[in-house]
């Protein structure tokens, strides 16, 4: 953007008063404070993950964040941009990516996911603010297609014995026998997605802080539940299982890759809910949240254009 308008002009050296256009005050928010708040809101779920899955889970988080932050620094350096790691955006991408990974994934794979997410998902498109797809989900998509077996090996909490996730049972029977485990998180699944209570607490905190627009999580969860009801499967099991809550509160609400208008946010959220259920019920994969979000990320520019507020729609020099 042009640098000229906000420039501060020094006049009257005697008084040395600054002259600048208004407004002269600012809300207590910055990109950095927002990113750090989101990271803080993920910490309850991160704590639950370490409690359930032990140190390997912490290792995956550290590796993924390291991959993301090192790549961010290298890309900014190569693009001759100021290396602003403390804005927290790369660390957040790394942490979110780790949340979508199996807790015992080899650390180098988690690291590589961070590298791809930031390098290809973000900087290849122009860096912060310019990426069309959620970088964490780009990293996860890369790992899913590259390392199919380790990316679908799910250890049970506490003992680490691998087995099927609740999604497999839900896909087969339409419901789940132990809903309470979905609430607490004491079940197999991706590292940060299992505990509904930790995710909801963090998500509500973000809504109250004004960082997350409630329309997106409410839209996704509501659509998923209604779709499940209409399809004759258990809506509660579908909402609480898999990556739905993580996606609804933390992935789909990414500022950069979600629509900017309120109407657009509703369309986006409903789209994610519908696509998630279509994938879960009728596609080969048991889980579809991350692909649903990526697909709707792709539709976001179009949604923005369709829902663009135009004022009165005719300018003073108008046609």
């Amino acid at each position, binding site marked *: *953007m*042009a*640098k000229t*308008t*906000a420039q*501060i002009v020094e*006049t*009257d050296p*005697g*008084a*040395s*008063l*600054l*002259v*600048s*256009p*208004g*407004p*002269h*005050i*600012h*809300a*207590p*928010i*910055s*990109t950095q*404070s*927002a990113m750090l708040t989101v990271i803080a809101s993920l910490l309850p779920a991160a704590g639950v993950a370490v409690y359930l899955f032990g140190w390997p889970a912490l290792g995956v988080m550290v590796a993924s964040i390291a991959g993301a932050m090192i790549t961010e620094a290298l890309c900014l350096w190569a693009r001759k941009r100021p290396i602003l790691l403390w*804005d927290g955006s790369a660390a957040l991408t790394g942490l979110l990516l780790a949340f979508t990974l199996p807790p015992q994934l080899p650390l180098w794979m988690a690291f590589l996911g961070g590298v791809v997410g930031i390098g290809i998902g973000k900087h290849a498109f122009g*860096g*912060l*603010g*310019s990426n069309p797809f959620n970088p964490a989900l780009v990293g996860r998509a890369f790992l899913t297609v590259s390392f199919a077996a380790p990316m679908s090996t799910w250890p049970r909490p506490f003992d680490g014995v691998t087995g099927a996730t609740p999604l497999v049972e839900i896909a087969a029977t339409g419901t789940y026998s132990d809903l309470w485990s979905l609430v607490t998180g004491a079940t197999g699944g991706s590292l940060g997605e299992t505990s509904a209570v930790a995710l909801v607490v963090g998500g509500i905190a973000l809504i109250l802080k*004004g960082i997350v*627009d409630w329309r997106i999580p409410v839209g996704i969860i509501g659509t998923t539940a209604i779709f499940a009801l209409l399809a004759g499967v258990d809506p509660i099991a579908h909402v609480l299982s898999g990556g739905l809550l993580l996606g609804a509160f933390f992935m789909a609400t990414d*500022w*950069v890759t*979600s*629509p*900017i*208008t*309120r109407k657009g*946010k509703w369309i986006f959220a409903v789209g994610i809910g519908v696509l998630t259920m279509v994938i879960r019920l009728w596609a080969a994969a048991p889980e579809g949240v991350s692909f649903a979000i990526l697909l709707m990320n792709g539709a976001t520019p179009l949604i923005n254009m369709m829902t*663009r*507020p*135009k*004022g*009165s*729609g*005719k*300018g*003073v*020099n*108008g*046609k």
Partner: protein
Amino acid sequence: MGWRVWERRKGVAMAHDKETAGDPVRPLDPPPLLRFPVQQHQGKPAVPVVKRGDEVRIGTLLARADGPISAPVHSSVSGKVKAIEPVLHPWGIWSMAIIVENDGEDRWEELPPGIKDPESVSPEVIRQRVQEAGIVGMGGAMFPAAVKLAPSTPIDTVVINGCECEPVLTCDHRTMLERTDALLYGMRAIRHAVGAKRVILAIEANKGDAIRLYRELANVYRDFEVRALPARYPYGGERVLVPAVTGRKIPPGRYPDSVGVVVHNVATVAAIADALRDGIPLIRRPVTVAGAAVAKPCNLMIPIGTPLEDVLKAVGLRERPREIVMGGPMMGITVASDDVPVIKGTSGVLARTEAELHHFRESACLRCGRCVDACPAGLMPTMLARLSSRGLFDKADELGATECMECGLCSYVCPADLPLTQLIRMGKREIIKKARAGRGA
């Protein structure tokens, strides 16, 4: 300062920081030298009618109005005209001004007789007296008040603006509490002048004492209503205020009169009462003086023409200001020097320190949509700012850039610290310039 932002209805709730709300308006003694710019209103500059060496008194006409959209200027002190020369104006321009040396004797000009009951005279008399008193919109817009009393379209509702939605400022609030008689009189006069059926006094909910006071008065007099509005910025802006109070939306590019409404600020109403009831022209106004550089923030009745230097000297400075804002922190303008005088539209003087300033450190737009949610005009600020900064003014025009009221909220809420309002304002100027050129051709 703990600013908090959350969305509900129009605009944004922000910290009010109205620490002078309990501080009664005290008169400020006029300084030795005053500057009266001939441009203290929108429209054509006034024409000086005095010359160097002339004796003037309090209320003496210094410059006459030039045409219908103009306003005369009166002296706020007695003394001698020292010079007529250009001075630095709050708007950042050089404006011709009458410089008056105060003799300290406070002699008054002979004033026109007072009107006891505004409804006993014709609307034409009211208009003429308001015009002759040099009254302009004192909320900051400085549009000649008499023009709004002579509507070209039928007016059924008068909205009296006591919102004072700008943070920090409290002079309108104090005016409502302290000048009850003047407001009751002024509201009656305005209603009579425009022939309206209803008068609605709109007050933001954060001024509970004023709301209670006028609700009681409205119960007694039954000739006006009180409407409490959410304490959110910018409910005091006409384009938010009028729909909120009357349910009528002002079409883009038009004014409230197009929907049968006229809006006057409470300080203007009090000035109208002074002019009619006591014959006193607009020679002083209430001003909130605040900012961290000021030793004790307060409300002062300041003689028009008083240089800011004298205002700040009188209230005492804790440290040297880094920036002086005239008006409120959202829509006020910074002045280049403390030589600049208080004019008719000066609602606040904020002497601010470096620690209070906000420097916009533009970073990448994250498309969070906070500006879209905040925009009271229903526009897409981030898009308009981007188009403006790239010089794509036609596109910005199509997307409604000229409907921007420059309230400043988009810049205020932007986490990427983009100067959105500033960029849109620039684009708006270009669009309007082009439209004018187009009409001229």
